[in-house]
């Protein structure tokens, strides 16, 4: 019973945050709504007994990535977005699209409504189980994913570096951010 109430509570907050994200006109309000969505998703993970995933969700998404989003919005001082007139193509394609998507999701859910409940801690959720899965059972996919992330980082560094100094040898994700940050600080020293 408590479980169901909590599920509806976090689910409600999550959906409300997502709707608010789209409705808000100022980017910083949208970004903050996204933080609410991430945090309530962490609540849902906790209800499944996946406490490690919940903690990582808060630390990585709500705590680190969204802070960077907000930092960028603050740094660029992005203003309120302007509402353009209603696009007729968007209306004609969007509303039927949403309707079809909703019907599909509802159909799939109803068709599989006979699936039995999953009791708490039935699925791997404690750090030890996650470690076992990541570093033992699925070691190769995990390593491949990390190489993929490395490629993305190197791409970001190359894109961010100035044309004359492409490919610094000590490429790190820190590099790009640090340059931005030094710009923030350097402006004040030059005064």
């Amino acid at each position, binding site marked *: 019973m408590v479980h169901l109430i909590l599920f509806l509570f976090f689910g409600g907050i999550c959906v409300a945050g997502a709707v608010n994200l789209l409705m808000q006109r100022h980017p*910083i309000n949208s970004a*903050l709504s996204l*933080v609410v969505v991430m*945090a309530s998703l962490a609540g849902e993970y906790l209800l499944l007994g996946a*406490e*490690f995933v919940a*903690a*990582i969700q*808060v*630390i990585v998404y*709500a*705590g*680190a990535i969204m*802070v*960077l989003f*907000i*930092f960028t919005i*603050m*740094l660029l001082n992005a203003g309120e977005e302007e509402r353009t007139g209603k696009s007729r193509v968007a209306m004609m394609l969007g509303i039927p699209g949403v309707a079809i998507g909703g019907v599909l999701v509802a159909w799939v859910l109803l068709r599989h409504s006979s699936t039995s409940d999953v009791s708490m801690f039935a699925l791997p959720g*404690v*750090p*030890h189980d996650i470690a076992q899965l990541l570093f033992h059972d699925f070691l190769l996919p995990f390593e491949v994913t990390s190489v993929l992330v490395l490629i993305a980082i190197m791409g970001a560094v190359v894109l961010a570096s100035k044309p004359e100094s492409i490919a610094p040898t000590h490429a*790190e994700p*820190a590099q790009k*951010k*640090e340059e931005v*940050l*030094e710009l*923030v*600080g*350097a402006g*004040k*020293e030059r005064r």
Partner: protein
Amino acid sequence: MSNIVTFAIISIIKSAAVVFVLLTAVAYSVWLERKVSARIQNRWGPTKVGPFGLLQPLADGVKFIFKEDLTQPYVYKTLYIASPIIAVVFAISAISVIPFGGEISLGPLGKTYLQITDLNIGLLVVLGITSMGVYGIALAGWSSNSKYSLLGGLRASAQMISYEVSLGLSLIPVMILAGSLSLRHIVEAQAHKHWNFFFFPLGTIAFFVYLISAYAETNRTPFDLPEAESELVAGYHTEYSAMKFAMFFMAEYSNMVTVACLSTLLFFGGWNGPVFSDNAIIVAIMPVMWFCLKVFFFMFLYVWVRWTLPRFRYDQLMAFGWKFLLPVAIANLIATALVVALYPNVFSVATK
């Protein structure tokens, strides 16, 4: 009485007691800071209100409540009001997973741990909560709509993002050595072996990396650029007055208490220490005393460092964080992992 009622009553009592102690500690760390800084500068500090100025925090509290609460017309009102609340809520709720003693017996009510709640991911919860605290400061700077506040907020968020990486990496060796993420297990693991700080040199390096990054995370000297008085007036809380300003102050000092607690728990054996008697009451109280003593030492260290070291320059801050602290933390992590993997029977890594 059913189980759930007992649990609820014990939890409420524990939470109320812990929050009360935390807020008192916060108020008196301000007193400690003023007193110690005064002694360092050969002054007296607060002396007028009560003996040794001990009632000064109370007087300050009353003053904050009765001061005029100004809200400038140019601020973004919702976020302007929300940000001190965000800062203080996350700062205080981090204490919820901090254990401060062993198990005690409550007679007919059974036994309970001296901790609001024991999670097996306690350390991650503290990290998650403190990482959310950045929002309070960043949004305060932005919503004030003033250039000093904005620059302060930008500096604070940049600094906290940068040093959070080293902070996290300096904690992983501790997790590896204890084989657990639960703060209680980490302390108990140190009781059987030795304190992580004395695990030379790996634990010692991890401790110093942690301490330095934590000082940067809490925006304290030598990393207090977000509120550098000579250039930014007061940084992110320039436009705040009365209780809203006090909330930022409370958030800063509660974060300091959290950092002091974590240093104690992770590197200095938590509540472990010699107990000189067999008396049941002394056996129950002595560990808590040890814990408080260690936390007090770290609070004192905070003040000591603040009034001893000058402030970094901004480029020095970033270069130090990314080019020195981060590589050291990574190297230390790899070394610790190697040592534990090579000598598994020495460290007896927990299986579950």
